């Protein structure tokens, strides 16, 4: 099961973006903007759906 958290960062123009940070174990992490259309975010959503359906 995915082990993740969401953080918010401030962009240079003052806006903010949410990011997903996935803990992959062994001190390894993957982060990506939680923005629709981002392939990493889309794959993350599909995996969450699959996990909830199982």
């Amino acid at each position, binding site marked *: 099961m995915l082990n993740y958290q969401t953080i918010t960062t401030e962009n*240079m123009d003052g806006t903010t973006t949410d990011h997903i940070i996935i803990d992959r174990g062994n001190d390894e*992490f993957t*982060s990506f903007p939680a923005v629709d259309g981002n392939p990493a975010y889309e*794959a993350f959503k599909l995996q969450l759906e699959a*996990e909830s359906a199982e």
Partner: protein
Amino acid sequence: MPSLGNTPRPAYVYDTETDTWVPIGVGAHTHDYIPNTLVDAKGDILTATADNVPARLAKGADGTVLVSDSTTSTGLAWQPYGAQYYAGKNFVINGAFDIYQRSSNPTVGNTISGGNNYSADRWNVWNTSPSGSIVLSRQLSGLTGIQYCARFQRPAGNTAGLNFFGQPIETANSILLAGKTVTLSFYARKGADYSDTASALQAQVWQNTTTDVGLPTIEGGSRSTAAATTATLTTSWQRFTCTGTISSASTQLAVVFYGSTTGTAAANDYYEITGVQLEVGSIATHFSRSAGTIQGELAACQRYYFRQTSNSTNGAAVPIAIGIAGSSTILYPIMHYPVTMRREPTSVDFANVNIWQGAGLTAITNITLQSNSVGNDKTLLNCTTSGLTTGQTYGVLTNASGLSGFIGLNAEL
């Protein structure tokens, strides 16, 4: 008095109208001809071994070409295509698994639990069972001419279902194959406990009208299979091939492998593949790296993903980037890429990296892409740490424990 033709012939007939003896028949002479019996089989070529001495040259092995060779009796010889290793023939990048940036120890490889993930560079593991687990690793192949192979393994005790292992091909490369006959070739063997009941491995070339997407999306919608074979594996290497025609409407291809593994995995429930090649034509030729050289293959892979990491000869605190502190807890490092990437990265991998200002290391706890400041040849990162002074410059270094520190940028399909 009748005239007599002056050409010597075996006989003459008399023409009363012209009062002429007309020669008939053919005089003594010889014929030089090549008898049908000189050729024996499809593909035989007629050649010569000397002046006025015809000879037969049998067809060469599939994929070979005819070259001049003065050491042979006919002056000709079949040999593998002269430029066996050249860029652009093979549309599968990293088909021999030479590049494996995502693991500091490729022999152990990556454990992939559910979902769609990359492992060896450009190779996509799609585990359709969220609770399933696959270990993808790189092993020595033992094959002549190919150093490594990929091992796709269900770990012992695993009951995961259908798992795909494949490579989605970027649209810019896929469209070059539209309307063409292509051949997929690869070497494969199985582990002693490979659990497909028929020891089968399905190998397919998928096609779709998608644009730059990964395996799960290519598989959906209007996907069709342009070429396929069912390889029956043994524990010894075999080369398999299949040929098909790509639709002229196709905009994206993928090379995909999967087995119908069943039950609970034993210790050696795996298959291994290498030398994966997709090329134009109906004959499988000698395997070539997609980019021709190891340097080119690395650059081709880094166009999709690259990782700055420690290395085996200098594992301690290797520099990755330099940045400026935006606050006491946020550092903005600028990360330059070794090659221009396919597009701006969409995610970042990291482990065990630190900030440094000339002495001592302080751990970085989170790294994200700095949205709106991400390019396809450099990017700004957002690193969370502590003890910074706003406006000061800091280095970003791996930690001092060998291979475990890295930052990787991902622009994969």
